[in-house]
């Protein structure tokens, strides 16, 4: 622990930010001292990245004030914020892979004399920065040759070369090995001792408790707690993160699940390029009329698992799938569809809809054979099926010929759902089905999911919204770093237990 320096280098007061339909931040206050590591913790969607983007100049419009060294500042853009000494190390690294380490560090600010680069000075300055970080690395190395951990260090070096006084790190250890993490921590501690102020965003509570001096917890866009790290513990933090009154927005279901219809054994997925294990020996089973919820942090492998179950994985998949007791070979989405499995993917605009085409064409895309005929399409049959879907799901649109891209988020999602319902699935996979949708449409979709389960569909639901997962599922499975970390029946699943399991017990 460094000396307590009472002067605040940063104070954010009453920060609020609205996006269409949602209040991302509600009067958030956050402060930072020199020579401090302040952890920012919260669920996905709690507002952490929005807050940091405001600080980093990505969102110039917000309510509230930001004080830097007690002077009020208003950043118009990212460069503004960077010039004031704020640097953000994002999860997605932005190094130029073909350039050397030194060039990357001083990108855009290469030392020059009369137009020519002063290479000697460049390498010397870069060397000094690397030494400051205790990195034994030749500044002439090509960035491409570095491991992820080292690349991250270069990003930090780059930030320091810009005389950053505030360093924001977003999930820095997500892609690091244990030893790289240790190196990173050593560097962060050293920087803190030198007086740099650090904001550390992470889901890994163990790290948060090891590194940070203070912790601020966000939930649903508000600060629910802020305290010294020594004054609290992991379980209290988790409770603050997820504890909320679960409003009665989930209609209860009465039906009993039927026999097992879908089983997956030892599903393993390897990244096609890095060979990293994305999903490791996950087994699950779902019964008719049952909703199996899959919870876990981002990057835990949930979407990769669903992609594997649907035959849409680009990575290498091993494992077996059984439908109604019989082994099924699912090597492509077409295979899955022929087995009557539907998949409502996340990111409907990118993966779910052809946004330039009409609602009708989108809806009939997966089941065109059944609806319209294998070769000649029967427009009338299609239109009839489409009309039925629109009224069934209460999709609000001018006409079946409206462009899918012009609908609201909720109606777009319903269109995607309609597409898969027209396949007449026995198993339905849902990945973040209510992301980016207003509360009214969400409830409609919840009712729909319940209705489908009542009608006997087996449903696997992936969602980052804990209330959603807990409210809709009969069983909850938790994934952590590609493995099954726990399973809970509805009666015993609480937000704290699930989140605790997801973050690493």
């Amino acid at each position, binding site marked *: 622990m460094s000396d307590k320096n009472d002067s605040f280098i940063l104070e954010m007061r009453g920060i609020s930010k609205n996006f269409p339909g949602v209040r991302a931040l509600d009067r958030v206050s956050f402060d930072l001292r020199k020579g401090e590591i302040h952890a920012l913790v919260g669920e996905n969607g709690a507002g952490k990245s929005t807050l940091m983007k405001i600080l980093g100049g990505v969102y110039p419009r917000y309510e509230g004030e930001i004080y830097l060294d007690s002077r009020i500042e208003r950043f118009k853009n990212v460069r503004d914020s960077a010039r004031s000494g704020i640097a953000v190390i994002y999860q997605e690294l932005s190094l130029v892979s073909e350039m050397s380490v030194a060039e990357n560090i001083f990108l855009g600010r290469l030392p020059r004399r009369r137009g020519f680069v002063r290479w000697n000075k460049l390498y010397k300055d870069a060397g000094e920065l690397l030494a400051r970080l205790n990195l034994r690395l030749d500044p002439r190395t090509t960035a491409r040759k570095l491991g992820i951990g080292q690349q991250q260090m270069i990003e930090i070096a780059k930030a320091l070369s810009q005389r950053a006084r505030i360093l924001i790190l977003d999930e820095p250890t997500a892609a690091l090995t244990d030893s790289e993490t240790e190196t990173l921590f050593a560097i962060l501690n050293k920087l803190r001792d030198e007086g740099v102020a650090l904001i550390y965003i992470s889901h890994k509570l163990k790290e948060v408790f090891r590194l940070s001096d203070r912790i601020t917890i966000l939930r649903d866009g508000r600060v629910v707690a802020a305290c010294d790290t020594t004054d609290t513990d992991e379980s209290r933090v988790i409770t603050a993160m997820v504890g909320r009154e679960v409003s009665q927005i989930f209609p209860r279901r009465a039906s009993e699940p039927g026999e097992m219809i879908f089983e997956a054994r030892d599903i393993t997925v390897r990244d096609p390029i890095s060979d990293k294990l994305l999903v490791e020996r996950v087994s699950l089973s779902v019964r008719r009329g049952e909703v199996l919820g899959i919870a876990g942090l981002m990057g835990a492998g949930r979407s990769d698992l669903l992609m594997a179950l649907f035959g849409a994985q680009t990575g290498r998949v091993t494992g077996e799938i059984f439908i109604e007791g019989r082994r099924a070979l699912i090597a*492509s989405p077409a295979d899955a569809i022929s087995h009557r499995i539907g998949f409502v993917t996340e990111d409907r605009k990118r993966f779910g809809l*052809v946004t330039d085409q009409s609602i009708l*064409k989108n809806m009939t895309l997966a089941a*065109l*054979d059944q609806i319209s005929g294998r070769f000649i399409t029967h427009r009338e049959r299609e239109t009839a099926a489409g*009309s039925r879907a629109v009224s069934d799901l209460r999709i609000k649109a001018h006409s079946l010929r409206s462009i899918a891209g012009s609908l609201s988020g909720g109606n777009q999602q319903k269109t995607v759902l309609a597409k898969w319902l027209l396949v007449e699935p026995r198993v339905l996979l849902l990945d973040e089905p209510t992301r980016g949708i207003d509360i009214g449409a969400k409830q409609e979709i919840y009712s729909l999911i319940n209705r489908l389960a009542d009608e006997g569909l087996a449903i696997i639901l992936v969602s980052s919204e804990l209330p959603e997962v807990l409210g809709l599922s009969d069983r909850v499975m938790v994934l952590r770093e590609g493995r099954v970390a726990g399973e809970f029946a509805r009666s015993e699943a609480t937000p704290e237990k699930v989140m605790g399991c997801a973050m690493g017990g």
Partner: protein
Amino acid sequence: MGQAFIETKKRSIEFNSAIRTYSMVIALVAVWAIFAYTTDGVFLEARNFSNLMRQSTITAILSVGMLMVIVTSHIDLSVGSVVGLAGGVAAVAQGWLGWGLEWSILAALATALLIGALQGFLVAYLNIPAFIVTLGGLLAWRGAIKGITEGNTIPVQIPAFKTIGQGYIAPPVGMALAIASVIAIIVITLARERSRRQHGLGSESRFRLVTRIFIPSILVFAFVAAFNRYAGVPVPVLILAVVALAGAMTVEGTAFGRYLYAIGGNTDAARLSGVNVRLHALAAFSIMGVLAGLASIIYTARVGSAAPDAGRLLELDAIAACVIGGTSLMGGRGSVQGACLGALFMASLDNGMSLENYQDFTQDIVKGLILVTAVGIDMIGRRKDG
């Protein structure tokens, strides 16, 4: 149906290729009117009209195939060289190998189909960009025909073959075909109407029904009559009509066609909806190949011989025809009708400017300007809609 909901975006109805088609027709009629005036009516005389339509058939047939390739967000730059090579194969088969009509035609089609399938395979399954594959094809197939002919022009031996490019359908037969087409139009339109009622979709207004039968029928009769005033419907035009009809029905009325547009509109969404993206891309290139083979037969038949640099730059004409007709080079958008009208539009410009003794280079400049203007208007219109 669900309640109406006022969209915030202006263009909320799906891009209607019909709108583009109508505006193309208007532009075409305007150009025809202008040229008719400036040439004192020579432009629309029976013989010139017949020539004009015949001149547009090669590009139009190629543009049907090019449409399918572009809609799936690829491109084919090798088409001109394929036309040259396949035509050369037909001529060589007749002249040097003594093959008959059917076999030489088959040889040309097979050559072009194999090339199309090969290029399609390289693009779809080996992920080599279409631009590169077909650029390589442009060079390689051109080299091949130069090698096969040893630089010579090979004359066509079989007279029957030449009629494919130079022949006409006897006027009575042409009229009979026109009548048959109109009957088909009536039957299909009524069958569709019955199907609508069966599915509870409400009937079309009588006015719309009549229009839908009347307008195409009038057009068919008008065109056939115009052709008959000279020598009858040119054989290439008949072939084009069949190709265009089949092409339009395929892209608009079959699942295959629907999938092509989906692939171009959002490849990921198409794949995740169960569409075999690779196979469809391969098919699009293969169809392009077959149509290039067909075009090569007409081309060689019309010229009466196969020259080593036959078909040069035809791919650019085909692409321009598609684009002027509303096809987007980014994929997912375009129509057969638009592409054919684009081909006719460009042929009209060519023909009209020739009649007025414009030099070749002027014609090229004008065509270039038209192309950029047509797409520019498209882009501006699209930006307004957000």
